[in-house]
């Protein structure tokens, strides 16, 4: 199947992170975006465990056991970074001080509804973490996810089927085949991989999707999967 791999999706999202912004990256593919920020953009990555200014992963011989992000990764702190407590970290999130959060997802609806926390695995306990806070309150919520499920079903839908994370919160989705804006008028593809036709895109999307008049080819540099 043609399309972007995980690192390429993260790369594509990273290109849209504005210089000087404050960004929270979700666990999984989103957190890879920090490796692909265009040169010259000075960004503070926040992690919901209180780290402001998450830097690259710590080298094996420079690990500080208590310097971790919300995903338990051993990290470094960028110059000018600091650590706040969880109350303040979420006050920062809920108070609209995160310019963009980029999250992994299961489903996005045409009205921006978002499902990423409960995939209904039998008997496994619930796990919400900070997903609802981030999705509901960041100034912009972007989602990185495969365009389709493993069984081929759509993840971009007229209405979510899984339990919601937050209502009307997603403004942009980066999939392996398209960059899709969530607009007042529903889904609009801004970029599409060259091997996928508009008809293919529509067939693989669970709600009406328009192509932007200036829809461009979605391309990313070669990156390891």
């Amino acid at each position, binding site marked *: 199947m043609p399309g972007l791999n995980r690192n390429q999706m993260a790369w594509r999202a990273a290109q849209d992170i504005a210089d000087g912004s404050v960004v929270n990256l979700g666990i999984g593919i989103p957190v890879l975006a920090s490796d692909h920020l265009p040169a010259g953009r000075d960004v503070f990555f926040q992690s919901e465990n209180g780290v402001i200014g998450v830097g690259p992963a710590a080298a094996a011989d420079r690990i*500080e056991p208590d310097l971790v992000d919300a995903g338990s990764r051993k990290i470094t702190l960028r110059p000018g970074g600091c650590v706040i*407590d969880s*109350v303040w970290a979420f006050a920062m999130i809920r108070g609209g001080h995160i310019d963009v959060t980029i999250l992994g997802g299961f489903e996005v609806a045409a009205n921006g509804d978002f499902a990423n926390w409960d995939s209904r695995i039998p008997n496994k306990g*619930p*796990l919400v*973490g900070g997903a609802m806070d981030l999705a509901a309150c960041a100034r912009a919520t972007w989602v990185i996810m495969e365009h389709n499920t493993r069984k081929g079903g759509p993840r971009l839908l007229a209405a979510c089927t899984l339990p919601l994370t937050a209502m009307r919160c997603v403004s942009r989705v980066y999939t392996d085949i398209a960059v899709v804006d969530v607009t007042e008028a529903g889904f609009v593809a801004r970029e599409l991989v060259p091997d996928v036709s508009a008809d293919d895109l529509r067939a693989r999307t669970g709600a009406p999707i328009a192509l932007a008049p200036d829809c461009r080819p979605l391309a990313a540099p070669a990156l390891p999967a």
Partner: protein
Amino acid sequence: MAIDKRVATAAAAMEDVGDGATVFITGFGGAGFANVLIRALCECGPRDLTLVVNSATHPASLTHELIAAGLVRKVIASAGRGRDPGLSVFETLLRDGKIEFECVPQGTFAERIRAGGAGIPAFFTPVGFGTDLTRGKETRQLAGRDCVLETAITGDLALVRADLADRYGNLVFKYAQMNFGPAMATAAKLTVAEVREARDEAIPPERVQVPGVFVDRVLAVGA
């Protein structure tokens, strides 16, 4: 009497903890777990506990030992899912209806504890509106957003991990160890801290992250 909150043993740190207590436990993202105190609480053996902890199943926390020992009636947390494909002790008990679970969005979880310590009995938040986790809660539109009413959490005991303490109970954390420490320390009737080092001399005022007035007992446990 000159204030000195340092205790010599984990058993002394857990004195007077009774059945039915609501217990806060710090720790998130691999940092700040009060594992010496959790084990001491296990040995102390109070029953029917309600745990207020970010995750019921984080492998780096010994919370699961309290649960496995059958001491826990209910868990309030933002995470209750084990990492393995199989079921954790907590998930097995949950499936079998032998433990209660209240799943709370993490920011609401933090804010409810902070509210408990700050004398705010309830607050409105937009987080969780329209989701399964706030079903049945009072809602209201405020400042143009749909919100839900959330209530404070207070507790009987807080187990807090920090890096440094002094005799006055002042605490200093190392990096992300801080997480829920300040909030939980303020929301419990009895706050016990385990620290790498507990000094006799006072921590310089500009380094204090939790004032000692919120901390009742300090146990030095080393690194």
